[in-house]
């Protein structure tokens, strides 16, 4: 799956949300991504369903569905499998068919970015083990891509919300997580982005517990980011995760980015740790093809973000 070749998306949506499927299919078509549409009735299909219909030429799967279904049950993990390959699979929850519009606007913005360099925001809760990890990632990446460390010790919650509107390709958060948001920044919740008017991120990865869980919330934090236009895609866990597994993800993500990986699906395939529990707890929300490129001017804007060092 490379951004410069024609890609094939399997788009799966409820039969009674046909218009949403049509809007999504048309949007991807405008981005030179061919979408094969499959309708379903009732709850999102089980893994057996995909085993029967997935062909080797499919590059990613996007399952849209009723918001009442949680990421943990909509998909078995961040990947589906054919005989020969692993395919990134994402979930998009919808209350109404028109909920796809802000997502489609974000898709268009991030996919039409000029193919320049990725840019990464490193975010972390103010705690030595997470700050140390972001510093290590900075050391591993900064010779190859622009990296911006906006950790909880040097930037406030309000300023990091503003900073995330620079239009960077990706953001990664380390720290404790909850279904309603990050514990870092004295509690980051989706409502803190309500007045967000910036340029969206390509993807936001929360390498922590539960940001895609529905525990005591109608919509998880990871799901709200693509629906609110903060990022085209989000990556979050549906239950608890282990710090050692997230550290392995971090190291492998650095290697994958340094190798020139340019989109979320490929990044996750290349960076997944070998132990299944480090992977199966996570879900992709939104666009599985989310590009890692930074907006024109995004690097310049990010360099102007003031931090207290």
């Amino acid at each position, binding site marked *: 799956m490379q951004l410069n070749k024609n890609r094939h998306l399997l788009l799966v949506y409820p039969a009674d949300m046909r218009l949403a499927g049509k809007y999504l299919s048309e949007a991807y078509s405008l981005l030179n991504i061919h979408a094969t549409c499959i309708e379903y009735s009732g709850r999102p299909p089980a893994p057996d369903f995909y085993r029967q219909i997935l062909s080797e030429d499919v590059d990613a799967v996007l399952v849209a569905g009723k918001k009442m279904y949680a990421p943990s049950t909509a998909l078995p993990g961040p990947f589906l499998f054919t005989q020969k390959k692993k395919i990134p699979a994402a979930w998009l929850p919808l209350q109404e068919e028109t909920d796809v519009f802000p997502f489609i606007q974000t898709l268009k913005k991030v996919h039409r970015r000029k193919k320049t360099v990725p840019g990464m925001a490193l975010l972390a809760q103010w705690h030595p083990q997470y700050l140390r*990890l972001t510093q*290590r990632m900075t050391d591993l990446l900064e010779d190859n891509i622009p990296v911006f460390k906006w950790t909880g010790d040097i930037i406030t919650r309000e300023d990091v919300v503003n900073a995330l509107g620079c239009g960077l390709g990706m953001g990664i958060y380390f720290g404790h997580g909850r279904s309603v948001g990050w514990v870092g920044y004295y509690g980051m919740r989706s409502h803190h982005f309500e007045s967000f008017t910036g340029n969206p991120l390509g993807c936001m990865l929360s390498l922590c517990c539960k940001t895609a869980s529905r525990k005591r919330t109608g919509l998880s934090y990871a799901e709200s980011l693509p629906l609110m236009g903060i990022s085209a895609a989000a990556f979050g866990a549906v239950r608890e995760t*282990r710090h050692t597994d997230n*550290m392995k993800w971090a*190291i492998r993500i650095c*290697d994958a980015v340094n190798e020139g990986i340019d989109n979320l699906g490929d990044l996750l395939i290349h960076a997944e740790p070998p*132990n299944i529990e480090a992977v199966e707890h996570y879900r992709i929300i939104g666009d599985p093809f989310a590009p890692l490129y930074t907006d024109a001017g995004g690097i310049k804007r990010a360099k102007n973000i003031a931090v207290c060092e």
Partner: protein
Amino acid sequence: MLTAHSKTTTMNQNEIIAQLRTTLYDVKPQISAAIGNADNFRDDWGLDSLELVEFVARIEQSFKILIPDKDLKELYSLNATATYLHSKMIAV
């Protein structure tokens, strides 16, 4: 390309240690040449938990194996790590 199994079973202890030194160089270049085969990573050379996990993550990548968290305590020196890798691969 060699699989992890064939690669490590055809490597002797010294060859595995040489490979581990290369891996360690990526994690902490200043110690990879000086560290003795029996030296303790944590007690003798002060590797912290992040460096040890990065070392393990890179071993998993280069040897294409899975090292469970419960086995991390067995990887305390180059000798111990090489022995662990060799035994694990033979047991496959």
